[in-house]
Each structure stands twice: as structure tokens, then as C-alpha cells.
């Protein structure tokens, strides 16, 4: 898996897993790299997988789809 965070303004298809949420900001784990992600645009909870675009989660995946999707990149 390789991507650059500079590519976040483009469509990053790699899902990240929410580790914690505080005040609309989530700590999201992208295969070991942690990133702050704004979750104001979705209804997401800890453990969900999210697709992130320009610093914001735009869609939530259930656990199984998220895990399967991460597999595609390995």
C-alpha cells in the first residue's frame, strides 16, 4: 500500500479505521499512519471504516467491507 497524503484532495480510495472521535474530529488509522479526519459530514462511530476526501470523511463502510477494501491494496 502506498499513497501520499498530498493526494488527499484527489479521490483517495483507501479506507481508514476510526480509532476515536472527539468534537467532530476523528483519529483515523490508515494502515499504521494516523491522521485527524473531520467526521461532520457522516454519521460515524469508533471502529467504522471511512473514505476520506480533502480531510473529511465522505462515506462510512461497515467493518467487513472496510476490511475487504483494505485487502485490495495489499
Amino acid at each position, binding site marked *: 500500500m502506498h499513497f501520499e497524503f498530498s493526494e488527499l484532495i484527489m479521490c483517495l480510495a483507501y479506507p481508514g479505521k476510526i480509532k476515536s472521535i472527539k468534537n467532530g474530529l476523528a483519529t483515523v488509522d490508515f494502515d499504521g499512519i494516523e491522521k485527524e479526519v473531520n467526521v461532520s*459530514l457522516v454519521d460515524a462511530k469508533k471502529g467504522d471504516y471511512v473514505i476520506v476526501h480533502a*480531510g473529511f470523511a465522505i462515506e462510512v*463502510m461497515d467493518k467487513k467491507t472496510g476490511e475487504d477494501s483494505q485487502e485490495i491494496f495489499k
Partner: protein
Amino acid sequence: MRMQQKLISEINKLAREIGRGVNLMEVCGTHTQAISRNGIRQILPENINLITGPGCPVCVSSQKDIDAIVSLALAGIPVATYGDVLRVAGRFGSLDDAREKGARVFGVYDVVEALALQKKYPNLVFFGLGFDTTTPMTAWAIKKGLMVYSSHKIFIPAMQALLDLGEVNIDGFIDPGHVSAIIGSKPYEILGVAQVITGFEAQDILEGILMLLAQIKDGRKEVENQYQRVVKKEGNRKARNLIFEVFEISDGNWRGFGKIPGSGLEIKKEFSHFDAKVKYKNILDKVDFSLSKEPLGCRCGEVVRGLILPKKCPMFGKKCTPENPIGPCMVSLEGACHNFFSSKN
């Protein structure tokens, strides 16, 4: 890998059965990039023609908007925007050029970073651009007090414009993945052409192409969703509500197309306090936008309409390279010219 080989052989089989030439257009900058990086255009059968469309937001930004934001920067207003835009040149140069002349210009990854900069530079303007995918973030930031110059656009009217222009016979669209995550699949139905909402991995794109060919062979004109792991039929209502809470629909100005009715997004009156076009009207009124013209000889406008591939432009790879880009199709990492150049080298 075996799955990809299977998809390619099924694509070959369907292409043979269809027999005639087929034009498929992708309309998302990240698809342009993924297709180039994975060499997908090269492995497709001869009668399947993959055209690139207006899916790169930086590329379709109008010269007028570039001239406007550079004018603000040169007038001493701090400007922030996504990194790709900084090198797009206009009549007064690019934002990068303005920075060299002493203007305060910042490249940011997201609007949160722009809001943080605003704390240091209270009169900062964010140049907001992008399609349905990035507009919700700008709307969110406006509600938090970010001053914005909006060049945001709604995407489907551009697809309609392409079909109405009729310059290219489009048999099917590879619909954008993340625009669709916001708008869902229904809005595409008005276009009345074969379409598949497609993800960004090589396997997704091959699957999308295969689904399009199956539609074309059967004479179906449906909107199918290959990217179901992300795109829901109803899209992201929360994000859409936010867009229309802050923005209203206007006529958008696109490079290569000119005005497309109903494709633009302007900040609503109730948020005009955060609208740079209102706040800095006195500066913008002094700029003669009738002189805002695309760079001489640049064919980016024809590239985004799918009329030519980059190599048809005499400047491509010679006078115009990623190091010295003439137009935005070579500037942007999502631009067709940039990607054709990078995959060639």
C-alpha cells in the same frame, strides 16, 4: 492479478462481439490518473476508445477565476487554496508568481488548514474549487467563518453539456466515484446514456469498462454502480444539505465550455459576509475580465471536452511540460496532459 486477466479477456470478448468502435469517457481526474498509471488505455482492444473528459477541477477552472484570485493576492489579500492551483497561470501570472512578488499565498491540504491560517491572517481568502465532492467541505468552513472565493461547480451539467454539444459521440460514461458518493446514482439518470459509477483501483476500472460494454452490447442505457462498497444509491444527504444551506445554483464558467447553465455555485446572501466576491468587489470591479484569455496555443479546453488527446497539442512535451506547464491540464496532477506526459516518461 488473475481476476484482472479474467476481466481483460472478458472485455476482449465483448469488444469483438460489439464489433464497431466504442467511445467511453472518464470524467474524474483520479480516473485519468489511475488509467494512465495502470496502462489501461494500452491494454484495451483497438475498437475501445478511452476518452478523457472534464473531470479535473483545476483544469476546468476558468481563466476569469484565476485572474480574479491572483488580483486579490496582488492587492495584498492573503490567499489560500489547494496546492495544485498555485501554478495555474493567468493574465497576471499564477498565485506562485504573486508569492514571488511578495503576496501572501498558501497551499493547503484542506479547509481546516485554511481556517487555522485565518487566525493568523484575519482577511485571508480561500479559493474554493472542486465538484460536488469538495463543496461540502467549503460549505462547512464558511459556516465556521472562512472567507471564500467560490469557483465550485456541479458536475452533471457538464456531462449534459458534452452530450448536447455532440462533438464527440459518447457511448458510455465511467462515472466519477466520489462525486457519486455525495450525489448518489439517481441524478445521472437524466443523461440517458450507458453509465457505470466506478472505483479507482485498476480492477475497479476494468470492471466498470466491462459493465459498460455489456450495456452497450445489449443496447441498455442504465446507471450501474460498480463502486457499491462506497457509493450508496441515495448518496450522502448530510453533505448535500450542507452544500445547499450555504450555496445557491448559478451559471458556472468552465474552461473549454464557457458558461454552463446551472453548473455553478455561489455563496448565498445570508452568508455574503464570507463571500470574497462581495467583500472585495471594489478590487475585482477594477479588473477587466474581458482580457482574461486562455494561454496562447494551449489546447487544454479541447482536451477537457474530449476532442483531442494531449499528444495532438503541438506544445505537449516540448514547450509544455510538468516543469514548465503552459496550461492547467499540464499543471494539475489530475490533468490529462500531466498524466499522459508522466506515463510516457
